[in-house]
């Protein structure tokens, strides 16, 4: 474990050094993050300029949801997204044949594939998302310690779900080396900007249990705004664990299929 932490530290530091080599990139990333934030918060403000609630969600709750959405996105963009994109994205290691070298490393392939690339600027988004969550809590009132704990637990399960889905989609590239499937999930995750209850019932069920965007964004946000159902946490963890297990198995089976890019 200590070895992996050292490895993560080295990989993160290297990513940071790489980013620092491109000074203009810092400014561009800050502008991008700010615009992203202003667009998101602006949307919620515009929405509530004409209505007090959105299918039972008030302004502060919707703002909290946006904050959770941005937080999940930023954590995804910190390492899970870049790492898996380095494997299965366009020009990824599966395309170039560099995955050969990943397979030869004396570290579990899934661990290396999931931690190999970091995007340190995503931490700016993480900070901004925490500011948004703080603003929402300031408007709605600070949640109870119990709700905060449930929020953190549900966020943990949500990240597990997110990782499992992305790992599964990245592993699809071993079978089908076309348009990266992770792009499709990015579009679906956008639906998590809004409470899943605003969608028709059947769709909201799909978004909770089939493509669990609800579990990933809405349910943690519900705990944050004191309207969560603690009973959902257990199946959420079970689903998260199950999907991580299944995705890992699928990844292993897919790696066996790898026939290496041509010499």
């Amino acid at each position, binding site marked *: 474990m200590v070895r992996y932490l050292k490895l993560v530290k080295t990989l993160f530091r290297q990513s940071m050094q790489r980013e620092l080599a491109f000074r203009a990139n810092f400014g561009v990333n800050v502008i991008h993050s700010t615009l992203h934030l202003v667009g998101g918060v602006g949307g919620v403000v515009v929405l509530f300029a004409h209505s007090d609630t959105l299918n039972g969600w008030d302004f502060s709750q919707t703002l909290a949801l946006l904050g959770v959405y941005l937080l999940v996105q930023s954590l995804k963009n910190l390492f899970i997204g870049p790492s898996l994109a380095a494997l299965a994205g366009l020009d990824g290691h599966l395309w170039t044949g560099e995955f050969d070298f990943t397979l030869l490393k*004396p570290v579990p392939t899934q661990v290396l594939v999931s931690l190999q690339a970091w995007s340190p600027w995503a931490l700016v988004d993480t900070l901004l998302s925490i500011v948004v969550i703080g603003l929402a809590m300031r408007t709605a009132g600070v949640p109870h310690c119990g709700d905060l704990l449930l929020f953190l637990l549900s966020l943990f399960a949500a990240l597990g779900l997110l990782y499992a889905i992305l790992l599964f989609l990245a592993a699809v590239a071993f079978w089908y080396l076309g348009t990266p499937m992770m792009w499709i999930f990015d579009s679906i995750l956008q639906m998590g900007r809004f409470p899943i209850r605003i969608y028709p019932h059947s769709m909201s069920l799909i978004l909770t249990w089939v493509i669990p965007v609800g579990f990933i964004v809405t349910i943690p946000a519900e705990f944050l705004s004191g309207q969560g159902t603690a009973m959902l946490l257990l199946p959420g963890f079970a689903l998260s664990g199950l999907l991580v297990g299944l995705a890992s198995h699928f990844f292993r089976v897919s790696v066996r299929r790898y026939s290496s890019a041509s010499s």
Partner: protein
Amino acid sequence: MEGSIHVDSLGKTYQIPLREPGIAAALASLIRPTYAEVTAVRDVSFAVQSGEMVGLLGPNGSGKTTTLKMLAGLLYPTSGKVEVAGSVPQQRKPEFLRSISLVMGNKTQLTWDNTVHDSFLIHKEIYGVSQGAFRTRLGELTEMLDLAALLPKQTRNLSLGERAKCQLVLALLHNPRILFLDEPTLGLDVSMQIRFRSFLKEYNRRHGTTVILTSHYMADITSLCRRVILINKGTVFYDGDLSEMARRTAPFKLVRITNQGDLSGPEQTHLRELLERLHIVEQEQRNVTFRVERSQVVPLLGPLLNAGSMADVSIFDPPIEAVIDTLYQGVMA
């Protein structure tokens, strides 16, 4: 054991998609794709002892890179057995992976935007090399390949030759017992190739590392490997001493004579008659090169020297490229 390799009846078959040209065939292949089985490696067996340097030769598509990748554990064999450093490579156990290294001339594992030294540090952490061992290894390799000036440079700013050197050092940082080199000098200029070879020779001498090398540059093979394994169509058709292979494949010497006068002159009749009975390889003005069976070289010299007015005679082995070409042509016919 730790640096040895045992390969027994190794085979590898791929399934590749097939499609007729045109949009209709492309649409049809979406519904009913057709596949063909391609046998890249049919039946390959050999054993390599610890510390040996062996050249794996064969024409393009002969199965040598597929064999190398199965030895490294990258590909699963369809049939046969392989044991490298006491392990089954496909199990990819950490102790096995620490004992090998693979260098591919057309690929790099250096991080493009980081400095060379940074790439080395990642490698150190991944392989769990201690700080002391890392410093010692890096010092030795840097000195041997004169690399110090390259360490602070970004990989993207290196020339092809510089990148190849750094790539080789990276592959050796964890002190592997077995080194697989797949076209390591691909695209390098002549002097860089020479430096590469002398480094590998010296490294093998110092550390006793087993080296399996594939290369289309015959100078790589002749200067590094006493033993060669020739593969074609997925089977081994020669495994043994390189010079013995040359003797068997080309049981002749080349003799080059330079005559003092023009060969068409009337006083050269004897020489012309003698040459007519020989297998001439090349002829230009006063120079003639011909093939003679090894046992016939000495008996021929007397009549040859008497027949004309020689300015120079040289006897040499056919170039290894010609020997290999003869072999390839023979087995592909």
